[in-house]
């Protein structure tokens, strides 16, 4: 067993033999790169000049007043391409270039990681193929168009549930065939080691900035930090610099879909069991035969039956708490944030907002929290409109 590949009992490298040398090669290149000042300089250059970092830590005045506590929003929605995904893509694509790879592949759920990858590929002139579940291709037509405009080839994946899980399977299969010249950019904090570690490293910029910004604003650490969890990339980035600060409560909002008492949810921590998927051991929604169950969430980005291995570990050790949030709760929170602060969050991020507003009711005026607004809601306008008309919400 490769001990460093594990977070407690989670993680590992459950891939075919064909990929083991590739993983080792990536691991060595990654460890070398993050110790190379020139690589780090380049990475930060693009984060600043291309992505537009740092992102604001915005004090949400009206929400704070309404809930009687200090609510800060970490504005990852203001990044170039509209979400936190670009932070990780630039890190991995610079690594791919450093390793001499010419082609990149990626999986995508909501399309945000696919758009970010296609963007990075255009920027660095690399050939890019994005695997996307057929169902998600329909739900996220605008993002498909953006990827194609950026020069990426979008492959609709028709197998299983036709969503992120299946797109990831297909990306892994392609990677196993082509690893000699192709780099696989995983967008979430999942996959075989060293991917969860890489994604955390490249998303940790979220919490590094937020910690500093909160200190400047409040002169202390926040009491609570909240982010949504699908595979768990924005949340691991939002938690990273706070994990060793025991005074900071960490909360992950997982998608409860139509409710965790139904079969239609994506709450792998609340309802899953440890299992193996996509090269890692972690919590997994599965049936009694060990087949992976279909996840459901109104948000394509959270529609995933597993979760990153470090989250499974943080859950078991009690360092972070994971709270299920339903479609309805998320959509209510989405409208509340939109109408109170003039910020339309992605439906994914709205799960964190819903969870946070519940938490805010327990907090005092002197306390403060940070909510990670992982992405903007522009891509979700069709889904939101369908949802609202179905419910007669705006009537």
């Amino acid at each position: 067993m490769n001990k460093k590949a594990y977070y407690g009992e989670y993680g590992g490298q459950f891939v075919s033999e064909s990929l083991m040398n590739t993983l080792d090669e990536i691991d060595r290149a990654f460890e070398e790169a993050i110790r190379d000042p020139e690589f780090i300089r380049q990475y930060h250059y693009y984060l600043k000049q291309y992505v537009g970092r740092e992102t604001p830590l915005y004090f949400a005045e009206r929400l704070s007043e309404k809930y009687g506590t200090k609510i800060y929003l970490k504005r990852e929605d203001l990044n170039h391409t509209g979400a936190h995904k670009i932070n990780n893509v630039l890190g991995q694509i610079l690594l791919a270039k450093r390793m001499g790879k010419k082609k990149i592949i990626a999986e995508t759920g909501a399309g945000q990681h696919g758009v970010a990858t296609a963007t990075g590929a255009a920027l660095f002139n690399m050939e890019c193929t994005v695997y996307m579940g057929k169902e998600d291709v329909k739900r996220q037509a605008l993002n498909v168009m953006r990827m194609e405009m950026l020069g990426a080839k979008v492959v609709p994946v028709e197998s299983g549930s036709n969503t992120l899980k299946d797109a990831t399977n297909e990306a892994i299969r392609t990677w196993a065939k082509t690893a000699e010249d192709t780099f696989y950019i995983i967008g979430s904090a999942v996959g075989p080691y060293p991917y969860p570690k890489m994604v955390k490293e490249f998303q940790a910029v979220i919490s590094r900035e937020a910690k500093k910004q909160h200190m400047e604003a409040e002169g202390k650490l926040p009491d609570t930090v909240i982010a949504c969890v699908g595979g768990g990339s924005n949340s691991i980035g939002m938690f990273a610099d706070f994990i060793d600060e025991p005074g900071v409560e960490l909360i992950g909002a997982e998608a409860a879909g139509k409710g965790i008492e139904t079969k239609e949810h994506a709450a792998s921590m609340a309802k899953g069991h440890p299992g193996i998927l996509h090269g890692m051991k972690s919590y997994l929604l599965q049936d009694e035969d060990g087949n992976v169950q279909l996840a459901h969430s109104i948000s394509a980005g959270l529609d995933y039956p597993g979760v990153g291995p470090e989250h499974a570990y943080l859950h078991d050790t009690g360092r972070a708490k994971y709270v299920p949030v339903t479609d309805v709760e998320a959509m209510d929170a989405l409208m509340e944030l939109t109408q109170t602060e003039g910020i339309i969050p992605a439906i994914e991020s709205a799960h964190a907002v819903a969870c946070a507003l519940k938490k805010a009711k327990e907090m005092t005026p002197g306390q403060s929290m940070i909510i990670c607004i992982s992405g903007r809601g522009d891509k979700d306008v069709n889904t939101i409109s369908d949802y609202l008309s179905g419910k007669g919400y705006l009537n």
Partner: protein
Amino acid sequence: MENRIEACLRELKQKNEKAFITYITAGLPDMDKTAQIIKAQESTDIIELGIPFSDPIADGPVIQQASYEAILAGSSLQKGFELMKRLRSEGVKKPIVFMLYYNTVVGCGLEKFVTECRESGVDGLIIPDLPLEEQEEIKEALKGDDTTILIELVSPVSKDRIPEILKDARGFVYCVSSMGVTGQDGSFHREVINYLTDVKKQSKIPVMMGFGIKTADDVRPMKDIIDGAIVGSHFIKLMRASGFDPKEAKRYSDEFKTELNSL
């Protein structure tokens, strides 16, 4: 007692014969048919029985589809064990290897899984998403009883990993002919001959080649290196085209085995 796979391969070596191995997904289209197809293949030396999984990342479209249909038809690990018991009680002595993904094992519980394998007569395990680094637990659970053994896989890019993989390998070593997934017709890795030669030189046990093989002629270029051939996706295609006719399974098996040994 000697492991059934190892006994079979020892006998083949004495007869100077190459081994022929086929793969079929358990429960495609149903367990009765699977049993008939297994029993009909007199010339096949070892049967690889696929336990379907929802997310078979090492498989190409043919076996993916087969797994999907088998699951819909009610196939599962438990049904696989029942099939094994039935085959053994009906006198099938042929070595049978389970090909399955590690989540299916973990879902069953490792101890229970190993006990059921031994009791139902599963002779070997091929777990494509369990590389050497992750095998500690299952090797520990399999220790001390030769009934069920773990089969090791190597790939064209294994290179410096080969000695470590072969060190305690049992039964035969499964050489994947190309990178990637099962069932890529005729596209063996460009270095396939060098790679197979390398593995053969280092291996104390028979070397089998699988992935992308349709006819015995496909392995003619490596006939002096390998000790046998494995056919999966193509066999499933044939079975499907014949309406899962056991007679077709017998015909194909007889033909392949004869040709394989007269290359």
